[in-house]
């Protein structure tokens, strides 16, 4: 067990290194000199030269990477070109907004979709199963940004029940914050429950064909006991991995939702950074999101043996 945990943790170190190198190289490929960008159009050539030295741009690329990695490890993600703010506090601030929405949404999506998928599997090929698959395939096919725009159109503009754009932190105004995040959260719950339902159904069906389930039924256990006590744990394991993947990738995909509802989240910070060619911000956001993605998947994998002890063997 301990060995499994340690190998899994160690195996993510080279991944994180290459991920950082990729982000670093990508940023170097962006056309334009960072020092000129930093100083603006009116800078004298001498100033640019001095700035390049100060930013370490006159060093070989490998040295630049090592310096940058060193800074990142000490929490120094550089400064925004546009606002001169430190990038890391900016990211953390925006991250708290996005993470709230993502966590709440994925929690409710799983709460609805896992039982729905198991129910469909239990009623396999009957009307209710086909209805569940049809609905989840439909949900899976609607892009989140369009789902968001439709909710906005119906509940925000036509019915006027919910505020259409903006965000207030929970710490400032709890009910206000709740009203603002209802639509983004419902959008994500609807969209993501499609894939979770299908996964939960497929893995439940796979498990329910195994001999031990037949054995449990033959013992005379009730269907619900067979389902919850015997099938659930094994069937939930693959779904759990999917939930982890969704949790991590939503941090990048949420940019579209934040655009629809004008929420100042991490995704929006990244997109605005790309528009403004604010490369320290873009670099910081990409690295941060990729790190979170790797770490979330690591945590998911580390919890996995609790659901399915066979993987440690």
């Amino acid at each position, binding site marked *: 067990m301990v060995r499994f945990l340690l190998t899994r943790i160690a195996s993510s170190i*080279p*991944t*994180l*290194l*290459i*991920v950082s190198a*990729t*982000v670093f190289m*990508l940023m170097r*490929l*962006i*056309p334009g000199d960072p020092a000129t960008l930093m100083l603006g159009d009116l800078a004298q050539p001498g100033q640019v030269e001095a700035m390049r030295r100060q930013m370490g741009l006159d060093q070989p690329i490998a040295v630049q990477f090592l310096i940058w990695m060193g800074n990142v490890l000490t929490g120094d993600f550089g400064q925004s070109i546009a606002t001169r703010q430190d990038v890391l506090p900016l990211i953390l601030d925006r991250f708290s907004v996005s993470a709230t929405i993502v966590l709440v949404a994925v929690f409710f999506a799983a709460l609805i979709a896992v039982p729905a998928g198991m129910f469909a599997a239990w009623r*396999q090929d009957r*009307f209710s199963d*086909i*209805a569940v*698959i*049809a609905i989840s*395939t*439909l949900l*899976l*096919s*609607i*892009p989140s*940004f*369009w789902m968001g*725009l*439709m909710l*906005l*159109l119906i509940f925000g*503009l036509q019915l006027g029940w919910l505020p259409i754009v903006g965000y207030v932190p929970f710490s400032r105004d709890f009910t206000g914050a709740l009203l603002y995040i209802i639509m983004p959260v419902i959008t994500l719950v609807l969209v993501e429950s499609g894939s979770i339902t299908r996964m939960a*159904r*497929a893995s439940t*069906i*796979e498990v329910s064909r195994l001999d031990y389930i037949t054995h449990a039924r033959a013992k005379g256990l009730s269907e619900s006991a067979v389902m919850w006590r015997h099938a659930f744990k094994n069937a939930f394991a693959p779904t759990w991995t999917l939930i982890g993947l969704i949790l*991590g*990738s939503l*941090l*990048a*995909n949420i*940019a*579209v939702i934040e*655009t*629809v509802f004008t929420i100042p989240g991490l995704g929006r910070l*990244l*997109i605005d950074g*790309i*528009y403004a060619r604010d490369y320290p911000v*873009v670099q910081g956001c*990409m690295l941060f*999101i*990729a790190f979170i*993605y*790797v770490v979330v*998947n690591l945590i998911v994998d580390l919890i996995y043996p609790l659901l399915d002890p066979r993987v440690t063997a």
Partner: protein
Amino acid sequence: MIARALGLPRLRFNGLFGGAMVALLVLVAIIGPWLAPYDPLKLDLMARLQAPSAMHVLGTDEFGRDILSRLIYGARTSAWIAFSTVAFAIVLGVVFGVLAGFLRGWTDRILMMFNDAFLAFPGLLLALGFMAVFGASRNGIIVALGLAYMPVVVRVVRGTVMSIREREFVEASRVMGNSEIVTMMRHVLPNCIAPITVLATTMFGWIILSESALSFLGLGVPPPAPSWGNMLSTARPYISQAPHLIILPGLCISVTLLAVNMLGDAVRDWLDPKMQD
């Protein structure tokens, strides 16, 4: 449910409906220029934000451009980008996957180390990074999404090659004195076609979704060229005045994705009996 009413097995229905809709999309994409009633770029400032009428069947947008024509050209854009991207990702993915799976050893280890690191990025994030480098352009999207989704192909192809190369008929080909390359091309690669087809169908959907998301964010197909994603993005300010500008392009994306997903389910069950439920 409709399948039941028609008396068809669900998968047959999925395949037929999905296949027909995808074929329709491709057809519209190809004959679009003859189908569209107007030039999708032609401005008519006297006819801004019109509701559907006899003149403009689906209404006009904020510059008086005909929506139906723009949707048809949008189908062209999406279909072209999706096809080229899938082709790009599959070709690169097969090359690297086969190299890794067949040569094994250090080549495999190093290729896979980089591949896994690329897989450690959420697809859209990597694509956004590439778009930041290339700037918003049609070819930029193809390369960005192609590179972002290639690692999945590499994984699948390598896995398949690894398992097939251990089979007897591959050994037989070697014993017969065929060179490694001939064995590879004649006996191993053809057996990778089924999993690649399944993956390509699924990827087609991912790419249409990602392209529309990138375009919606303003980092995909640059205006004024129409794509379903950028039509949604430019229509956002007019959501209360002209809701049809928002409803129609999204409906096109959703119906296309539904068709691709249904076709994907059918193709997977047809070619990959292991996954059948």
